[in-house]
């Protein structure tokens, strides 16, 4: 390789999505479409599982991309593109939940037994007992898992979703949620302990 070769700024960017975003910044609309196509389902999935309404999640997904496009001139590829887009996603999800005053999928009826209410796992067992064959249907399991995730505190839920769906590390989740990796460690520990308590009764019947 010739030492006189000066690599372009774009080629120095390791993250391919950040490179696409730099192209968007330079006015390449096809690069933007490529980014949308690449992230639309991922953003939608996180938003849907965070707020619980498909229609609202779709609107917010489009809003995420509109914000990305509007902010293209100020984009600096200093961090991974996914970190940036999920920061926008997280902010929009938090705002959406705040604006509709946290409509929970399943209301916690009693509050006399800690933050999770009256033994929610028992409650869930009572509500959805295994079918005659002793097995839960796939749709029932899916619903129970959704309910359990829906019962998590909104920050715990977002950390879990980013960790599960995007396979992001603690440092990256911390960057997205504007906190420290050690805070994410505690947040995820609490979230997963809560999930275990809520879903443990179903581990054997599945």
């Amino acid at each position: 390789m010739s030492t006189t070769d000066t690599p372009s700024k774009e080629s120095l960017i390791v993250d391919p999505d950040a490179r696409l975003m730099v192209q968007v910044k330079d006015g390449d609309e096809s690069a933007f479409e490529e980014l949308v196509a690449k992230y639309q389902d991922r953003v939608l999935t996180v938003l849907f599982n965070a707020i619980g309404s498909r229609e609202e999640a779709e609107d917010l997904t489009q809003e995420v991309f509109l914000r990305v496009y509007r902010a293209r001139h100020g984009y600096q590829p200093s961090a991974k593109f996914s970190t940036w887009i999920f920061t926008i996603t997280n902010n929009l999800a938090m705002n959406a939940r705040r604006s509709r005053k946290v409509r929970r999928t399943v209301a916690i009826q009693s509050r006399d037994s800690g933050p999770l209410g009256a033994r929610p796992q028992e409650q869930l067992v009572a509500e959805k007992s295994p079918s005659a064959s002793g097995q839960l249907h796939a749709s029932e399991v899916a619903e129970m898992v959704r309910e359990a995730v829906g019962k998590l505190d909104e920050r715990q839920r977002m950390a879990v979703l980013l960790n599960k769906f995007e396979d992001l590390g603690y440092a990256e989740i911390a960057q997205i949620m504007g906190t420290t990796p050690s805070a994410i460690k505690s947040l995820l520990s609490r979230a997963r302990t809560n999930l275990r308590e809520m879903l443990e009764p179903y581990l054997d019947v599945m």
Partner: protein
Amino acid sequence: MQPQHQPRLSDDERINLVAFLDGELAEADAIKLEDKVARSVSVRREIQALEKTWNMLDWLPRLELPEEFASQTVTRIHTQQLRAEMIEGRLKRFTIIAGKIVGWAACVLAAAGVGFAAIRLAWPDPTRELINDLEIVENLDSYRAIPDIEFLDSLAKLGAFSEPAAGPAPGAAPNETAPDENPPAEKPPDQNASEPKAP
């Protein structure tokens, strides 16, 4: 057989358990925890439960959008841009029109001002002239009663126009009122000359 000692997890270690499963724990802490996991059935059971519930999250729905979503988003961006440009264009046009109106209004005002000043300069105000000549107009009858300039000369020689501080002129008639209030010129000595002559 003696039961094996089961180490219990401290609160910090319990928090570290999830990080340990995620591979996010520092090596030293991970080694310590691994040791406890190896020696404790309950910790192993807890780890298993955590892993299983974590795997249950695979049941969460993963949604998909139609392929045309990307092009729809780009179209929406274009629509928004067009709308923004239209609003900007309207604002620009409005600014230009408003600027023209203000400019014309300023020109008209300036022209009116210049015209007014010119008229004031070219045609002196007759009222102002009247005010300037008020003293003369007020005393016009007295002035008309003066027959000629020789008469005024004679009065001047008698000292009728001298300053009041200098005292009454010799030979002047004693007068109780101030000279300014009742000037001697208004009382011509020659009563026969009461018929005014044309100046």
